[in-house]
């Protein structure tokens, strides 16, 4: 099926849940209300015309700088019917949770843990929701846009402090020295655009 047709079918079935349908580069994304995500996914998985049996990926996006909350993106593919659709569940900023889709795709387990780890989105009904890539005592969620690129002393992971002390002794050849009359490249780069947020 064509992706747009799938999106229409989805809208017909769940008219209240579909907020928007967007298309970019021939790929269709359906923006959903988060409340019935498991039902919707279950229907997409089981409907004989659609049969979205393969969860390609699940990831979260932090849209807060754009004035929205978070989003959890499901990229779905049907191996049998060879079509693709993207679901984007809208999550408000203050209630950062979503229902787990593990009952539909077992492979969602680790994806959801990763999403929780890096973006702090809680997946309700997940059997073993804990950090996966970062250490268990890590604070904060690095893929949030407000997570500092170079942390201050306060926000830093405790274990990192010792490591830094250790590496200071080794970093005697760094770029610390500044001379007064010459502009440093690092400065210029920061202005010109490598620095990031």
């Amino acid at each position: 099926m064509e992706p747009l047709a799938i999106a229409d079918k989805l809208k017909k079935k769940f008219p209240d849940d579909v907020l928007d349908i967007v298309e970019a580069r021939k790929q269709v994304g359906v923006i959903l209300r988060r409340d019935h995500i498991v039902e919707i996914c279950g229907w997409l998985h089981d409907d004989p015309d659609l049969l979205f049996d393969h969860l390609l990926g699940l990831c979260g996006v932090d849209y807060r700088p754009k004035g929205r909350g978070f989003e959890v993106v499901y990229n779905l593919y049907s191996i049998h019917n060879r079509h693709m659709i993207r679901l984007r569940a809208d999550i408000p900023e203050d209630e950062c949770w979503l229902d787990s889709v593990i009952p539909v795709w077992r492979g969602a387990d680790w994806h959801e843990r990763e999403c929780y780890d890096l973006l702090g989105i809680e997946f309700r009904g997940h059997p073993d929701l804990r950090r996966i890539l970062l250490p268990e005592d890590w604070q904060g969620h690095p893929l949030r846009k407000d997570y500092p690129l170079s942390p201050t002393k306060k926000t830093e992971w405790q274990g990192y402090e010792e490591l830094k002390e250790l590496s200071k002794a080794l970093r005697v050849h760094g770029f610390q020295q500044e001379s007064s009359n010459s502009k440093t490249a690092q400065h210029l780069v920061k202005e010109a655009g490598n620095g990031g947020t």
Partner: protein
Amino acid sequence: MAALEQRSMEIPIPAQEKELFALKMGPQHPATHGVLRLDLFLDGETIAICKPDVGYLHRGFEKIAENKSYAQFLPITDRLDYIGAMANNVGYCHAVETLLNIEVPERANYIRTIVAEMSRISGHLLWLATHALDIGAMTVFLYCFREREILLDLFEELCGARLTTSYTRLGGVRQDVSALFMDNLTKFTDDFPTKIADYETLIDTNRIWLKRTQNIGVISGKQAVQLGFTGPTLRGSGVDYDVRKHRPYCVYDRLDFQVPLGRKGDIYDRYLCRMEEFRQSVAIIKQCLEQLPPGPIVNDDAPDLIMPITPQRKVAADSIGSSGIIQLMEDRNIYMEGDVYVSTEAPKGELGFYFVSDGEGRPYRMHIRSPSFIHIGGIPAICEGEMVADVIACIGSLDVVLGECDR
């Protein structure tokens, strides 16, 4: 939020685990292929519970990508699956080109197909080497490295690096193929089938090998799809899913090749699938060498390496003398808002990139769908109920690379 933090700290241990023999395998262990850690709970030598633990090689690639331009992130993709860096380069560039709507010249596409298949062969060679070594057949290890060396030399001839290739560029490839490269590659494709015969003589029908691999680590096709497996791991279970056939990229739709499928989904089937992929890859390379057309290797309109990250920073960038390129970008309006998911068939499975762009020269959010991450997530489903020695064989048959898993 506080409750959330609290929750992350405690690791649930079911009651029955306390009576079992806990064995922490890895992250420093000869057979965990890097820094994978497995918390095994043994009942005798049988695995009762298996919990993989990853993250020892986490380098925050997704965060890095948000702060680098599309071109700047390319060398970092080498470090994803460092066994088949070329395939990552091709996959990444294909994804960015889809996002930015950049055409790729015909010749570049052929060269990309060649290098992607070469990296598939070299990746599978390393898989076979380590898989055989895990099961104890150490001679296969060195025979495989003998051939891998030739491929790495070819990569060096092509792009100046053996492992971290950074070969593709947005809209093409960096360098054209040389005569030496073509000759050596042709020779390699001619010789390689006899080398495969070497490996097969040693292990293919060996009764010990069969005993260690057949009917072990079985995973049905349905289960494998449920778990999100891709690549040879999925095809070993008999599910016909190959990105090269389903959503062709480069020139795969013009080439004649077959996708090997297994029957049962045990370790031996996965082994046979990869062995057949060797032959198919050689066939693909041969066809590409045959059909390699003349023409440019890079799209002249493609963004330069120094692509500005944001339009606002244009002024600052102007002062360092790259205004012409910025003008080009703005004229052609190649920065778009929206999101795409594009995937390619890397040696390990489906390597997908999900980009969210907000019109800047860097991704607003990039998610890497790495096959190893998902395959490691499926290890418990495969291993539980098998024996300690089989865990090693199962990990080997999944062909995981931790650089890609942890990103």
